[in-house]
């Protein structure tokens, strides 16, 4: 039963991804070419998972948040903060472990702040995280003192541009984080509780769930994921850009989660499908780039494709199709 429902869910996203990849291949026949060079894989496909990794990581953190009827608009800004902390720490000469720990700690603190506002003060997630979305970038600018802090520590840079077993590091990190998060929520009771809170918060409270602590933990995890994405983004360009790092990525992450089938109204969720959603978005971006389409069209094409995916997923469409199907036989009978 479960396998069945999962395969049913899978179909939409996998078909969408296949469709996008097919179109990519049609407009750019070399799309699927993958070559091995200098001990790592190269090609458009590899590029998709590499470039898609930051949004995929954000989507991993965003999924439980959206599943509890929340949203985190601040993750893009938290990326900038984490990148700024990592850059300043490494420039100050701290070892890699300290640098990473500091950046992640600050990111988790940002998530906790959101969680406190939402779970304990009852502020709507949209507004609560909007605060940090604005303030976070300011914070990042303060940390970098208004300039772009560049660094050259090879260990830190490796996180953004290195490779492991032929795969780019960002993709490896995203994959491991996805597996870890997925196993964690499904092997513990977290997944069940998240879906319970998202489905009916009042019933969850009446049942004795610790809704507040769980929501706090979820936002902290969202902050952590934003921190990881922020470090990758900074390592990729070897510098922390407080103004542009992670800009608008929160919206891509939300979109990835929605494409992955988690409703903004909360409830059932799947972290792997959200990651798939992020890959679909990136496959589109890359496809538009390699196709040689005028860049002016990028956003329009992207919006169009996303609309098609969302319409295909809509429950209402399913109802309409079902209604037409049941009506049709009757229609045929009438002479």
């Amino acid at each position, binding site marked *: *039963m*479960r396998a069945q*429902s999962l395969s049913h869910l899978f179909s939409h996203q996998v078909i969408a991804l296949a469709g996008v990849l097919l179109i990519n291949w049609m407009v750019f026949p070399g799309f699927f070419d993958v070559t091995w060079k200098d001990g790592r894989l190269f090609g458009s496909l590899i590029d998709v998972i590499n470039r898609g990794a930051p949004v995929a990581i954000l989507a991993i953190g965003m999924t439980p948040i959206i599943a509890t009827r929340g949203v985190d608009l601040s993750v893009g800004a938290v990326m900038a903060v984490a990148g700024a902390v990592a850059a300043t720490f490494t420039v100050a000469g701290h070892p890699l472990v300290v640098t990473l720990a500091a950046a992640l700690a600050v990111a988790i603190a940002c998530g906790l702040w959101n969680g406190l506002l939402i779970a304990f003060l009852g502020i709507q997630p949209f507004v609560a995280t909007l605060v940090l979305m604005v303030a976070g970038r300011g914070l990042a600018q303060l940390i970098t003192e208004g300039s772009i802090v560049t660094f050259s520590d090879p260990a830190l840079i490796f996180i953004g541009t290195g490779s492991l077993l032929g795969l780019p590091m960002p993709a490896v990190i995203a994959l491991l984080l996805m597996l870890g998060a997925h196993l964690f929520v499904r*092997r*513990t*009771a*977290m997944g*069940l*509780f998240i*879906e*319970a809170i998202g*489905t*009916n918060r*009042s*019933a*969850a*409270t*009446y*049942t*004795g*769930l*610790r809704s507040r602590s*769980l929501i706090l933990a979820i936002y902290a995890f969202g902050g952590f994921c934003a921190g990881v994405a922020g470090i990758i983004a900074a390592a990729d360009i070897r510098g922390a850009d407080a103004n542009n790092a992670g800009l608008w990525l929160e919206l891509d992450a939300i979109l990835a989660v929605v494409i992955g089938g988690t409703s903004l109204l909360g*409830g*059932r969720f799947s972290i792997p499908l959200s990651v798939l959603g992020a890959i679909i978005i990136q496959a589109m971006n890359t496809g538009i780039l390699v196709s040689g389409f005028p860049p002016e069209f990028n956003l329009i094409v992207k919006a169009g494709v996303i609309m098609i995916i969302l319409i295909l997923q809509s429950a209402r469409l399913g109802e309409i199709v079902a209604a037409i199907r049941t009506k049709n036989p009757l229609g045929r009978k009438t002479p």
Partner: protein
Amino acid sequence: MTNDQRAVLQATGITKTFGSHAALKNVDIAFQAGEVHALLGENGAGKSTLIKILTGAYSLDQGTIRLDGEEVSFATPLQAQALGIGTVYQEVNLLPNMTVMDNLYIGRQPRRFGLVDRKRMEREARAVLSGYGLDIDVRADLSTFSVAVQQIVAIARAVALSGKVLILDEPTASLDAAEVEKLFDIVRRLKARGLAIVFITHFLDQVFALSDRVTVLRNGQLIGTRAISDINRTEVVKMMLGKDLALHHGEILAEESEVGETLVSLRDYGLKGRVEPINLDIHRGEVIGVAGLLGSGRTEMARLLFGIDTADSGRIAVDGRDATIRSPRDAVALGFGFCPEDRKLDGIFGDLSVRENIVMAMQARLGWFRALTRDEQMEIAGNYIEALDIRTASAELPVKLLSGGNQQKVILARWLATDPRFLILDEPTRGIDVGAHAEIVRVISRLREDGLALVVISSELDEVVSYSSRVVVMRDRAIAAELHGADINVARIVETIASHHAEAEQ
């Protein structure tokens, strides 16, 4: 009720079905000019469905509505309003951030040269409101006035817009005694002006103080319409609560000596404004039935016991030890369970499976990290599906697809899985079919025999009588009386509910 010549608004044969549930079955009702007509019934009786049909918010499946003798059909509330039927809801639905006069005239402002003539509007608003005995600054924001004033403004607007039938849906729910009196004056004045006034309330005192006639609905059916002079309080309560249940009557459980030791003990336990201080001992192996009309404090007491609201006075002891219950979590830790009145809103996780719904409370007790494996979950769910005879195609079916009775059993199963000592059931049989109804009543008796302590709130008095070891009657947010032994019968309970405040002191 045949064709009533004097009726302003007459509805005949009204039937409305939602899915498989008949919310109204062949209901006839007529409202006359110059009368206050009380519409009574417990939750789920069909009052609000009837009102929504009369005001055009719902379409009707069968039946006719006549206004001034002519058949009408409203597609929208606006049409009903334009034809003369105005409604004032319990929660005033005006615009609190606009001025009083704007609220009175929005959509029909007096104009001068195409612009809103605010001077005239102010003058007219003052004149209109003075007719209601209200002399206030109509240019101030509505939100700066009390609920009572807002209520009167809403009435004034409804009367000005419609002017034939005025429906007041629990208008006094948030008013104090003096404000209620003022409102009643206004209603009487409107009645004298020839309006038909429909008055919905849960307070019997107010029904008898204000109404000329009363109509009672129960389970979507018309029980009857009576002139207030021909009926007394006990009869009204009887009509509302009825006793038509085809239920297997158990022997009366009079033997209180059979019950076990005290499990929960309440001393002056209360919350200001919600529940007056309660003194009650609840024993193992005992069912305490709680009777009382809606708004009598029944649900409020349950919420207090389960920590949804926190008491501000008195003490609660469990097993002889003082306890603090500040949240449902505290209550669950003490071995309490609660089946809420509104299953959909507070009970079930609709999209989650029957299995997940059943294991939820147990898992919540185990915490985040000691997760039940899938096999364990299947076993627990399977056991209770069998034990309570939950009719579902599979344990994996979303619980929202089950019938009301089976949903209720799922919630019961959820608590039974935690091995509770004390269960609070709020209207466990409301809105479920007769078969499941009888089964739930049987389960209650079985749990009592197993040594659980139960508090069961119900409006079905036959049912209360059949399973209760003791009956607590609530009135005006306090325990009005406790009935034992031979006193546990429907007539006695009805009498106690209806009796005046005189003997309320126990």
